[in-house]
């Protein structure tokens, strides 16, 4: 379990990192926290020729309060976000999501952007970015582009980031006052990958009806995904137990659930509906309670 030989590079700007990516081509990979990449290298599943370490690029380690969003640079460690007072105040769902990510020592090294760029189908952060409509800033040789979360994840370990590009930051919209949010998941052991999980953000109108709703699911298919049919079922309705149950039943419409030794497709589909129901119920309860 030793990686093959690779070159280690440490640029001092995003521009320089992108230049190195383009110089070394397909074999070059960005190294941030390394919590997924390095084990994959040890198993020789990933065999990069060049590792471009961005963790010391000035400015990439910043958490910025943009007013309506929190922007997290590509070198910001998960634990830094987890314990950031600004994030706790403005985007507490992100803090709750991070509590589910692996184990504390891993969060001390792992980065939020690295996890998102890795695009593991089990990723809590991917699902949270979907539920919050986060925006990804992707930088390449010809400049930067903004990608909404719904367009960012393509499949297992695959995003819209092209060869020669890197994710430089992600912006999470702040959780609007008066909305309710929840994340929950089922994994066989603490800190392990979720077999199924959901994230939801719900706003209620003055009439008590659902004004807006997002529901995203993770751990169950080839990528984290938005459950639009479930959202549509709720929007404009009173969030009764029946409505939530019906929405939960719609959470997996047209989804091909994955299967492995920890759960068959049927079991994952069952769990997905259970967790869709659980997070919708919690989010609604918090919205009704006036929780942020």
């Amino acid at each position, binding site marked *: *379990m030793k990686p093959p*030989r690779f070159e280690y590079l440490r640029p001092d700007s995003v521009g320089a990192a992108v230049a190195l990516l383009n110089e070394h081509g397909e074999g070059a990979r960005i190294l941030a926290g390394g919590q997924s990449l390095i084990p994959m290298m040890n198993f020789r599943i990933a065999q990069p020729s060049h590792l471009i370490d961005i963790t010391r690029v000035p400015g990439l380690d910043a958490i910025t309060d943009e007013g309506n969003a929190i922007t997290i640079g590509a070198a910001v460690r998960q634990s830094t976000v987890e314990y950031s007072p600004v994030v706790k105040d403005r985007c507490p769902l992100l803090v709750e999501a991070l509590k589910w990510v692996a184990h504390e020592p891993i969060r001390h090294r792992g980065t939020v952007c690295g996890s998102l760029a890795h695009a593991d189908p089990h990723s809590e952060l991917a699902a949270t970015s979907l539920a919050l409509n986060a925006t990804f800033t992707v930088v390449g040789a010809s400049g930067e582009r903004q990608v909404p979360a719904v367009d960012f994840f393509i499949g297992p370990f695959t995003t819209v980031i092209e060869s020669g590009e890197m994710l430089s930051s992600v912006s999470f919209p702040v959780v609007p006052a008066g909305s309710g949010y929840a994340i929950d998941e089922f994994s*066989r*052991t603490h800190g392990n990958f979720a077999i199924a999980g959901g994230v939801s953000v719900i706003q209620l109108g003055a009439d008590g009806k659902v004004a807006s709703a997002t529901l995203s699911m993770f751990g169950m298919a080839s990528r984290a995904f938005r459950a639009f049919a479930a959202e549509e079922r709720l929007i404009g309705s009173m969030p009764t137990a029946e409505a939530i149950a019906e929405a939960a039943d719609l959470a997996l419409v047209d989804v091909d659930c994955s299967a*492995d*030794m920890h759960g068959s497709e049927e079991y994952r589909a069952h769990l997905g509906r*259970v967790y869709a129901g659980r997070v919708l119920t919690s989010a609604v309860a918090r919205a009704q309670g006036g929780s942020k």
Partner: protein
Amino acid sequence: MGLGGMNKLNWIGRSLPRVEDKKFLMGRGGYIDDMDLHGMLHVAVLRSPFAHAIIKGMDTSAAEALPGVVAVITGKQAAELCDWMPDFNPEPNLHKWRVLADEKVRYVGEGVAVVVAESRYIAEDGRDLIEVDYEPLAPVPSARKAQEAGAALLHDGMESNVAHDSTLAFGDVDGEFERAAHIVREHVYWGRTAAQPMETAGSVASYNPGNGMLTIHANSVALTNFSFLVAGTLKIDSNKLDLVPMPAGGSFGSKFWATRATVTAGMCSKFLGRPVKYVEDRLDHALSCDHHGSEREYDIEMAISADGEFRALRLVCTDDYGAYFQFGLGTHGNAMSQVIGPYDIKAISYRAVGVLTNKCQQGAYRGFGSEVHNFALERLVDKAAIELGVDALELRRKNFITPDKFPHKIPGGNVYDSGNYEAVLQEALKDARLDYWRAEQAKAREEGRYVGIGIVTQQERSVYAANEWWFFRGAEGVSSVPESVSLHVDALGKVSVTMYSTAFWGNSPETVAAQVLGEELGVNPDEVSFAYQGTNKGLPGSGPGGSRFTVMITGAVQGASAKIRDKAIKIAAHMLEVAEGDLEYVNGGVQVKGDPSQRKSLAEIAIMPRLFKHQLPDDITSGFDADMVYDHPYTTLPTADRSDLGIFYPMMAHATHIAVVEVDVETGGVKFLDYIAVHDCGTVVNPRSLDGQVIGGLAQGVGQALYEEFVYDDEGQIQSSSWLDYLIPSAMEIPEVRLGHHETPSPFTPYGMKGGGEGGRMHAPAAIASAVDDALKPLGATRATHLPLTPERIISMVNGH
């Protein structure tokens, strides 16, 4: 010697901090991977991607051309360098195995070549460059499929994949079943797991072509009286092999004795004349460690009388053994030692079917087969209570072997030395707050939550003896399982201990020896020093395993101490000018009986035989050392007709475990609400370290019951070769255990000790399964008989499947 007549103990029974801890906590324990010899090379093993295939050819030229690669040894070359691997099964010629497969691979991960290089990195680079031409064969992925007509054969010399099928029966089994008022039957499956020590198996071998000595440092040196077998495999004279023990970062059976890693490093070093290190990485360890644990199916039934008396037990156990039959049916001999559990069952029939499959071979894992039997038996007893409509606890009590019946000879021949099962149960119940939990259970059910309580009463045989291998074989078996120490008292009276196997497996051999020396020689346990000696020049040591080390090392220390005391009295008699008979050894010195003012301390005495030969009587030789080879305190030979298989595992510990769980019937998840474990391991040497043993074993029992499994698919591909999928419970999954110890001394061991090293794993699975059943009872769920109880399996039980 029992406790009767003993003086009050000063050290045994105290929770002293472990002597071993400091060096390991400071990173100065000297683990095998910390060892670095000048010019040392490193090994990577190329492993088969196929479960079953012929090796048609191999191209190693690219690997050999890689700078830094010193040699590539293929399976074919290894077959010339080494003989067959040591094997303890009764028919070794039918299914031999090699350190590397030469003609055929029989499981995913079996080694086919090694690359020896300047670093492990380069060795792994070289490994990627080897090309192997495999001709895949039909895989044999399970014991059931292995027995189907037309199944591919793993070993050409065999008529089927069944390596063994025989029955041991004692007592009137058929008669009891004919007369039985009730017959209860259960089918049980125990999933394949393996010990996962933090440190894997490893060896550093160093061959000296000048004198022909091959020295191998290894973290799995045990059974030193069998080291000649390893020498035979390495084609070296048995007196030219020195296996030197290193501390092990956990074993739990996985480092039972030095085989794959040791032979791999030894072969490479002997071939190249340079030091060579091979330490398994986690993937090596998962795929092809020395052995996985048991994977078994049971059809088990009990004959019960009209008034609820257990009369006879009959079982068929099918063992999905893996590719080789290295330990034969030793794991069933082991189960035979406690085949009736704590119950007074009169007759037993035990059919063991050993089936070869395309998986890593089976061997030792904390319990060595008797933990599986415990699970099957307790599941059967729970079912009996349901079918008889009686309280499960009362049914157990009714059938307990009562304290007046010890020593108790069981069907088969083994003896249970002592026990008080009711007292252990009482102690557990006293702490369990069952009334509270029953009320909580009722309340939870009203809320649609499912809480369950499981109670099991089980045996824990201890102090392994070789006689367990006699079962299921006709020929006479080996009967020696000694453990040795040497004591050295220096000129200042300071005591050093030498041990002769990888005594440290994560257990506390030095702490035990130090505490016993505190009693025997009156020295301060903190002041004792320890060393380990290799097999060459070494006294025999069987090592830990089968919960034997505490008792065995105590016997050895006690015997050696007696020799030291005798010499001390002899010398003191001269110094004090008093007859030897008027002296006694008390509190670290020799004094005139009844007159503490006339006394010589051990330090005052010790300098004499070290420095003053001519100031002592002529018959006192110089030196102040004592060796002791301690044999197992209580085993007997079988009768010639094998109607009685003899006494082989008589130190019978016992435990009650009570698990309280809540099952989420929507997800299948299980969480612990409470856990009580009361053990009776005879006299406790160090309660704190015994607590650690019980909790550690219990954690492995939780893993077995709920999380861990080496899953092989229909193609024989392993699905859980990393800890991403092979789920080891962490502190977050392990209950906060409330522990108790009851002490029923053994009449046959020093101080009345019994072993306690495997306890938790022997008991937790049945307690957890019982609790899950109790939780799901109102839902009409099927029973928890198939481990691990994965969440999906629990959902399917709830759905009645």
